[in-house]
């Protein structure tokens, strides 16, 4: 065990954290809504010192055969080497795939986007929504920062204009029509350190953790996605506690998106 791990574990066992936060307290959040003009929707989220940017691009494409009247959502996450000494260039690592899939499920399962409204012609043409997340600076809890950036970017996304053939006019202006977004899914990630659940962990806390749990909640206080990670198992009461804190915290964070 590294010195830092021992330190944060000991602190957590006493109910304390290195940065003085309460166990269920989130770091300071800032959301910059319009950093990229070329994207259809965009948001930069700063969570403590963690910095993440999410962009939404829209294009026209074919629907999946099992959902001919629904738009398509694709979510990706890029752990760029600029964000951390631990990130290397190359094909997406498993943790970036996992982050993207957890964010994707939060958006999809919360019904955040009205997918039926993205149908242009049933079975032939639908809007495809690409949500891409770039990590700029990793100081822990990339899942929550990414999910929040994605939700914020979708919230301000607008449709691009179409040309005569019905394709996206890539260099043309954007319309004022907003993407049909109904909800804002908010992810809350906990790490189990020193027998306690720590909400919104820093990198040191992540390194010392034995288990991880993400709970994504909807505007109505229901749960829409969960994912456990980490090497050790967790107890049922931890899951139930985490879901309670997530509903409460989700409500607070959602206010920042309004």
């Amino acid at each position, binding site marked *: 065990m590294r010195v830092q791990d021992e330190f944060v574990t000991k602190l957590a066992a006493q109910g304390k954290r290195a940065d003085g936060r309460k166990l269920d307290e989130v770091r300071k959040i800032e959301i910059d809504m319009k950093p990229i003009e070329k994207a259809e929707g965009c948001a930069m989220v700063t969570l403590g010192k963690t910095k993440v940017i999410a962009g939404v691009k829209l294009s026209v494409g074919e629907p999946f*055969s099992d959902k001919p009247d629904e738009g398509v959502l694709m979510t990706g996450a890029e752990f760029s080497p600029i964000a951390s000494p631990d990130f290397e260039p190359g094909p997406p690592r*498993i943790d970036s*795939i*996992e982050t*993207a*899939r957890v964010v994707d*499920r939060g958006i*999809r*399962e*919360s*019904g955040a986007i009205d997918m039926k409204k993205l149908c242009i012609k049933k079975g032939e043409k639908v809007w495809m929504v690409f949500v891409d997340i770039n990590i700029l600076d990793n100081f822990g809890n990339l899942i929550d920062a990414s999910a929040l950036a994605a939700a914020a970017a979708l919230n301000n996304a607008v449709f691009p204009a179409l040309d005569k053939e019905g394709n996206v006019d890539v260099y043309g202006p954007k319309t004022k029509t907003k993407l049909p977004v109904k909800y804002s899914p908010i992810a809350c990630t906990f790490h189990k350190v020193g027998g306690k659940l720590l909400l919104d962990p820093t990198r040191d806390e992540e390194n010392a953790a034995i288990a991880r*749990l993400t709970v994504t909640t*909807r505007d109505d*206080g*229901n*749960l*829409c*996605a*969960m*994912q*456990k*990670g*980490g*090497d*050790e*198992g*967790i*107890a*049922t009461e931890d*899951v*139930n506690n985490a*879901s*309670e804190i997530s*509903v409460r915290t989700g409500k607070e964070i959602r206010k920042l998106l309004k």
Partner: protein
Amino acid sequence: MKRIDGRKPEDMRDLEVEAGVLENATGSARVRMGRTIAVAGVYGPREMFPRRLQNAEKATLQLRYTMAPFSTDERVRPGRSRRGQEISLVAGKALDAAVFLDEFPKASIDVFVDIVQADAGTRTAAINAASVALADAGVPMKDIVCSVAVGKIDGTYVVDLAGKEEDASDCDLPIAYMPNQNKITLLQMDGNISREDLKNLLELAKKACEKINVAQKAALKKRWLK
């Protein structure tokens, strides 16, 4: 309420567990949950390559989950998929907690799971098969991990979703569970449920897992107690 295959809400699908189904592998198992069939093979503990990935303190458990191209109605494209990689990760982690990894520093324990037929609940079948295969390989474990998915259809909690039930359900909540340790080692959920639902579903899933555990142990006894 009756389900598409005539089961009661709390009934699992027909479950079949067999240990020792492969000759080459150190340990192996085949699990059938209804029409979903998973075959697991364990190689190791053996020296880990490339060497730079070795962990000096404990063994590394690596699970690879693959779906056969013919396992579903629409052909599955062979090769790595993002879904496959994520399931490999979470299923591997679900087993990590049960294995005494620190007894084999620098080693790798490779678990390969092939889904030969898929009809919902493939990750749960994969975990059930993999943990029996690990035990069959003689890898020391704290517990046998068992796994099942639960959901909520038309207001009724249902156990072990099959086929189209996965689409009809308000949520898909697979868990992996160690009954003796009383610890959850895999938990995923997508859908739309309340906190109360989550509480009830977890209890239901744990009960089903205990039944699976009995079948897993019986399969191991059948193979090894002659």
